[in-house]
C-alpha cells in the first residue's frame, strides 16, 4: 500500500528532497490577509476612505508531518481565510505560507498547480461538496484526471478502491457505483476524504469536518483523520469551533480572535491551563456532558467586533473582564506565559 501511495504522490516526495534539516511541512509566517471593502457610488463620489477587512492580521504557526493542529475560534475570527490563503485560493497581503520550505505567495497559477496536489481540503458539508450526479467512482477518480496522473482505467479504479478501503468504506467495490444520495452523511464525508487522499497530499485542511454529521458517526470520521495522519507523514490542520473535539483529537490548539492567534500550545495545556482571558471564557461556555458539572459560564457580552475597525491596543480589551488601562494602548504579542506548564505554550496577553 505504501508503494501505491508513493506512486500517486511524487510531488510530496520531491518537494521535501533537500539535504540538511527538513523544512517544516507548513510554515505560516506573519500572515496578513486583508480584503478591500467594496465602495458604492456614494462612497466613491464623496471620496470616503477605502475600508479594509482585517480577516487575518499577523498569524504565524508551524505544522509538522504527522501532526494534527486545531484552529479554533468563533465565526469571523479569520480561521477560514487562513485556510484559504494556505490553499493558495486567496493571495496574502503580506507574510508567507511555506509548504515544505517553498513560499507559495510568489508562485504563478501554473507553478502552484503541482503544489495544490500536496494540499487538499475537506469541506464542512458532504451534502454540498459531492456532485450529486457523480458516482463515488467519479468523485474519487476526478482529481487524478484533473492532475493528469490518471493512468489507465484499471489503474484508476485500483487506486480508487485502495483509497476507499483506507477511509473505511469496505468492501470498496460495493460503494464504487453508488450515488451520494444512496450514502449516509458519514459515508459521504468519507468519500470526500477519499477524493482528497487520492492525490497523496502532505497536508490536509479539514474545515469543520464533522459539524454537519450526526453525533453517532462523528467520532468515526475524526478517528479516521487521526489514523490517517498517524500512519503516514501527512499533517492535518483542522478548523473548528468545537473545543471539545479539538481537545480530544488535536495535538495542538491555536485559538484565534479577530484575525490573530491569541493562545496556542499542546491541547491538554490549552484546555487545562488556559492563560488568555478569551480562551478561559470560551472554555467556560463549552457545555459538559455531565449534568453535575454545571459550571457558571463566563459569558462575554456582545459579539466579536467587526474586523473592519479592529480595537486599539489588545484587540480583545473591549470584551475582556480583566482589561487594564495599558491594554488599550499596547498590542500584546504571543509569548510564554508565566504560569505555563509547557514550554510550547504561548499567549498574547499583557497580564500573563
Amino acid at each position, binding site marked *: 500500500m505504501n508503494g501505491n501511495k508513493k506512486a500517486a504522490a511524487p510531488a510530496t516526495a520531491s518537494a521535501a528532497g533537500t539535504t540538511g534539516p527538513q523544512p517544516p511541512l507548513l510554515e505560516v509566517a506573519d500572515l496578513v490577509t486583508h480584503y478591500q471593502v467594496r465602495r458604492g457610488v456614494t462612497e466613491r463620489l464623496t471620496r470616503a476612505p477605502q475600508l479594509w477587512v482585517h480577516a487575518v492580521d499577523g498569524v504565524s504557526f508551524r505544522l509538522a508531518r504527522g501532526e494534527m493542529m486545531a484552529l479554533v475560534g*468563533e*465565526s469571523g475570527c479569520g480561521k477560514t481565510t487562513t485556510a484559504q490563503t494556505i490553499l493558495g485560493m486567496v493571495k496574502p497581503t503580506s507574510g508567507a505560507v511555506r509548504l515544505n520550505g517553498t513560499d507559495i505567495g510568489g508562485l504563478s497559477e501554473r507553478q502552484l498547480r503541482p503544489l495544490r496536489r500536496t494540499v487538499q481540503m475537506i469541506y464542512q458539508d458532504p451534502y454540498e461538496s459531492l456532485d450529486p450526479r457523480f458516482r463515488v467512482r467519479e468523485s474519487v477518480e476526478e482529481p487524478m484526471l484533473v492532475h493528469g496522473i490518471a493512468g489507465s482505467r484499471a489503474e484508476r479504479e485500483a487506486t480508487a478502491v485502495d483509497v476507499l478501503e483506507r477511509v473505511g468504506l469496505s468492501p470498496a467495490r460495493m460503494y464504487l457505483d453508488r450515488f451520494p444520495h444512496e450514502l*449516509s452523511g*458519514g459515508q459521504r464525508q468519507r468519500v470526500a476524504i477519499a477524493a482528497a487522499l487520492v492525490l497523496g497530499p502532505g497536508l490536509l485542511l479539514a474545515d469543520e469536518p464533522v459539524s454537519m454529521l*450526526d*453525533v*453517532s*458517526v*462523528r*467520532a*468515526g*470520521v*475524526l*478517528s479516521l483523520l487521526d489514523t490517517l495522519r498517524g500512519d503516514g507523514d501527512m499533517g492535518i490542520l483542522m478548523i473548528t*469551533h*468545537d*473545543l*471539545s*473535539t479539538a*481537545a*480530544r*483529537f488535536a495535538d495542538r490548539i491555536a485559538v484565534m480572535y479577530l484575525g490573530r492567534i491569541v493562545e496556542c500550545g499542546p491541547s491538554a495545556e490549552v*484546555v*487545562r491551563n488556559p492563560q488568555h482571558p478569551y480562551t478561559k*471564557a*470560551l*472554555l467556560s*461556555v*463549552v*457545555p*459538559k*456532558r*455531565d*449534568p*453535575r458539572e*454545571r459550571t457558571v*459560564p463566563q*459569558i*462575554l457580552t456582545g*459579539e466579536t467586533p467587526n474586523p473592519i475597525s479592529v480595537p486599539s491596543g489588545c484587540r480583545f480589551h473591549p470584551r475582556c473582564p480583566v482589561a487594564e488601562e495599558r491594554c488599550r494602548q499596547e498590542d500584546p504579542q504571543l509569548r510564554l506565559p508565566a504560569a505555563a506548564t509547557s514550554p510550547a505554550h504561548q499567549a498574547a496577553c499583557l497580564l500573563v
Partner: protein
Amino acid sequence: MSLLEVSGLHVWFDPPHAAEVHAVQGVSFALDPGERFGLVGESGCGKTTTVLALMGLLPPNASAAGEVLINGQNILAGGEDSVQAYRWKDVAMVFQGAMNALNPVKKIGWQIAEPMAFHGVAQGAAARKRAGELLEMVGIPAAAGDRYPHEFSGGMRQRAAIAMALACEPKILLADEPTTALDVMVQAQILELLTGLSRDLGLALVLVTHDLPVVAQVCERAAVMYAGEIVEAGPTEALYHNPRHPYTRLLFAATPDLYGHDAVISIPGAPPRLDGELTGCPFRPRCDVPLDRCRDEDPELRLVEVGHRAACHRNDLVGAS
C-alpha cells in the same frame, strides 16, 4: 394534572408513490410549569415531528393520533379547529433556523407586533409597546425594534425570534435546535436566556436538540428518541450516570468532552428506515449488548427507577442495574 401531557402520540406521513413513513410511534411525556425538558436524538428520529404535532403544524400529508393535553384539554381532538385556539397562546415554538426566517423587508418590531394583532392580544400602539417590552425581555433594547433583520447579528436575530414566540404569553415554549448554527459564546447567551425565561415566567421549555451536552447543562429531565420512539427518559443526571438503554450510553460515549479521558467511539450502523414493519428492538442492529429476545420482541418503555423509564430487555434481567 400536568401542564402538558402527551400520550401515545403517533405521526405518520403518506408520501405520494411511496410507503407510509411512521415518524413518531407512540411518544408520551408530561411537563410541569417552569420545567425544562430535553428531547434528544439523531436526525430522523422524530423529535422535530413530535413538536410540530404539538403545534398542529404538520404538513398536509401527515396524520396524527394520540392525545396532546394542555391543562387536560385534548388540543388535537378537533383538528385545526381545536388546535388553533391553543397555538401561540398556550404553546409557542421557536423553529429551527428561525433567525433566518425573519422577513428581510419588515422592521423587527413590526414583525413581533403583527401576530399580536392577528391573535387579538393587542393592536396598534399597544402592540408596538408590547413588542418593545418583549425585546427588552430577551435582552435587546426596545429602540432596536425600528431596525431591519440585516442590521442584527445572528444571536440578536435568534433573540428576536424568541421574542416573537413569546408575543401571546404562551405557557409552553418549544425550541427546535435553537443554538445549532450559533457560535459557542452566543449559544451560551441564548441558553442562559431560555433558562432565565423558564425560571422567571414559569415557562415550560421543550428543548429539541442533537447536542447532549446542551441538554445536560440546561434541562432537568430529558427523553432520548430513536426511530420514532422514546427509548429512555428521566432526570438528565440519571441518563448520564446511570443510563439504562445502550443507545443513551453509546450516544454519550460518542460525544467528546472537554476534559474527558475516555476514547470517543462512534456507533456503528445507521438508524432503521421507518417505512416498513420493524420487528424486535429497533436498536438491536447497532446494539453492543443484544439479547436473543431483542430479535423478535420490541421492548416497552418501562419504569426502571423512580422517574426513570427505559425500553430495553436488559432491564428485565435479574440483577440488572
